[in-house]
């Protein structure tokens, strides 16, 4: 990872640009999505960037968390000049969930409905978003677009919002991975969390760089950035939350899965038509569950992916800092990016938007 460059970019942010933050939601057509075709371009709605004093709601659509456990995130976010509002589900616990389905649904819904909440930060992943996604009424998002933030199990919501509303969201670390002591946090952790601040502020285009992996396939790709947790993406297939990846840059990550299962999931991506028309592929962190004795799979994640994409020509990069590790940068989900997989460096850059259009008529 070319951490130095990245850290300079993130840490050098200083006070973010309020002028940019006051920009109204902008809409532009996705540039390169064959499936959506030029005749039917899917407009992308970018929620307003946050300005000082704006409120970020914190809620638990999936796993549970205590009020104490979100304090490091609350304090840091407030130090950035935002207000936070912890929802009713913070501190609730129903077995593995942050409250019953009804409680988690109600909490998330009121965050969607409340126009004063400018972003919804999911406190943690775990499991449970799929229990409430079909009952959530997302139409307020069209009226008051706001950033939904999270990853892992929250991939359900990010995919659903992308597939059905085409509103940008943020794939990012959540409250449970904010360090207790900011001053003692590892640099990559600090940089990862500050990238969320950058994404929310909209002050600068997102830019990431990492060192190349010998297994990479060089090239340049442009397209909307979509993806998330691979297992979660697999379990959305066939449902209305399933994403169309044609013409897009797909990123995937996972944790705690067997290699054979990862292989099966990449086959599933292919068999559901998610690999053949990609613009580019980003493979993030994969924490492997060790093979059971006698069931050694004998292939690495590199082997698995390389085999699956062999017949395609788009660029592929491995070990990108996104996933269940400390180095997990915030991605603007659905927003066009440019991926350059070079032999010296890999960069992912938020594509300069076309001239902002006016907000569509959302009657």
């Amino acid at each position, binding site marked *: 990872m070319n951490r130095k460059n990245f850290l300079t970019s993130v840490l050098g942010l200083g006070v973010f640009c309020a002028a940019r933050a006051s920009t109204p939601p902008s809409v532009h057509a996705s540039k390169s999505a064959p499936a959506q075709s030029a005749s039917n371009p899917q407009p992308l709605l970018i929620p307003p960037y946050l300005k000082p004093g704006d409120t970020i709601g914190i809620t638990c659509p999936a796993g549970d968390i205590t009020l104490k456990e979100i304090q490091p995130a609350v304090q840091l976010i407030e130090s950035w000049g935002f207000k936070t509002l912890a929802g009713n589900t913070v501190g609730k616990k*129903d*077995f*593995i969930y942050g409250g019953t389905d009804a409680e988690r649904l109600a909490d998330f819904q009121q965050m969607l409905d409340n126009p004063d909440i400018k972003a919804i930060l999911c406190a943690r992943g775990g*499991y449970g978003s*799929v*229990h409430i996604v*079909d009952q959530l009424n997302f139409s307020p998002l069209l009226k008051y677009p706001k950033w939904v933030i999270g990853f892992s199990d929250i991939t359900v919501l990010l995919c659903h919002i992308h597939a059905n509303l085409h509103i940008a969201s943020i794939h990012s670390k959540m409250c449970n991975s904010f360090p207790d002591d900011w001053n003692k946090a590892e640099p990559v952790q600090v940089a990862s969390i500050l990238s969320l601040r950058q994404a929310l502020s909209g002050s600068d285009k997102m830019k990431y760089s990492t060192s190349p992996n010998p297994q990479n396939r060089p090239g340049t790709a442009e397209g909307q950035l979509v993806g998330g947790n691979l297992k979660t993406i*697999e*379990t*959305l*297939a*066939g*449902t*209305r*939350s*399933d994403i169309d990846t044609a013409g897009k840059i797909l990123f995937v990550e996972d944790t705690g899965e067997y290699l*054979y299962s990862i*292989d*099966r999931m990449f*086959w*599933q991506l292919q*068999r*559901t038509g998610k690999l053949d028309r990609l613009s580019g592929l980003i493979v993030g962190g994969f924490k492997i569950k060790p093979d059971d004795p006698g*069931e*050694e*799979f*004998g292939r690495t994640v590199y082997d698995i992916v390389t085999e699956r994409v062999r017949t395609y020509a788009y660029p592929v990069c491995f070990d990108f800092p996104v996933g269940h590790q400390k180095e997990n940068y915030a991605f603007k989900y659905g927003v066009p990016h440019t991926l350059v997989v070079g032999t010296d460096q890999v960069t992912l850059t938020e594509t300069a938007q076309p001239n902002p259009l006016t907000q569509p008529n959302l009657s």
Partner: protein
Amino acid sequence: MTQLPPFLRPGDTIGIVCPAGYMPLKKAQTCIDTLQQWGYRVEIGATLGSVSHDYFSGTDRERLADLQQMLDNPGIKAILCGRGGYGLTRIIDGIDFAGFCGNPKWIIGYSDITLLHAHIEANFGIATLHAPMAAAFNEGGAEGPYVHSLRLALEGKDLSYACDPHPFNRHGQSIAPITGGNLALLAHAAGTVSLAPMAGKILFIEDVGEYLYNIDRMFRQLKRSGHLDRLAGLIVGSFTEGKDTTRPFGATPEEIIRDAIAEYDYPVCFGFPVGHDGRNVALKIGAPHRLSITGEKISLYCPGGGTTS
């Protein structure tokens, strides 16, 4: 209309292949001996007891070629998969079913083989056999009722199964084609060409070694894919070797399923002998079955003979 392959007659040949995980020949020996005692010839494919040293019983190409030649050979009347594991996904799109469609034969297996069953049902409308595989013949299994049910199915006899009532059962009766298999493989097939709509059918499911939250997630995937709302009935088999997260999930597989289908009113039974716990009856996927669930008795019946639905 589902087409039933011809039932077997004495002297017919059953081919054994391993389209997924590796299996040493000795683990299939009792199965081979038993099939021969039943009066069948057995042809051992190259992937059973192969020289493979990795997870699979051969390379994708080898497994595909072995299964393909069994499908194409008109002298083979049934193909018994030696074992499951993982691997069908990697070859399924490469299989040429033209010969099989012109000359249908019984394909036998479960677990990973669910994908093959589902794919054939979705694309070719030919019945297959969800049934014990080679290892189930070992340790006395060959004399047990489950392997016996496979024999009855191959011979075209009536299949009649019963199980004990379960407090979560929903009473009722349905006559409909049966479909299903391993939940993870059914979920894996969702959104691909390998899964047929389940509306109007009796669905059976089972699984092994999955986390409870993942059983919940996969079952909800089927629900969200529109497969569960118009079922003719649901048969819940065994969910064995289930794992739980450090923080307890708080619901058993049976509770997960009961709660996810609470809004529907079709008959449902739990604890049916299908799955990985040793109890695993032969079920003719695609063929009509009669499911009857009362407070006293659960029965599943599939008429034998040459009837085609």
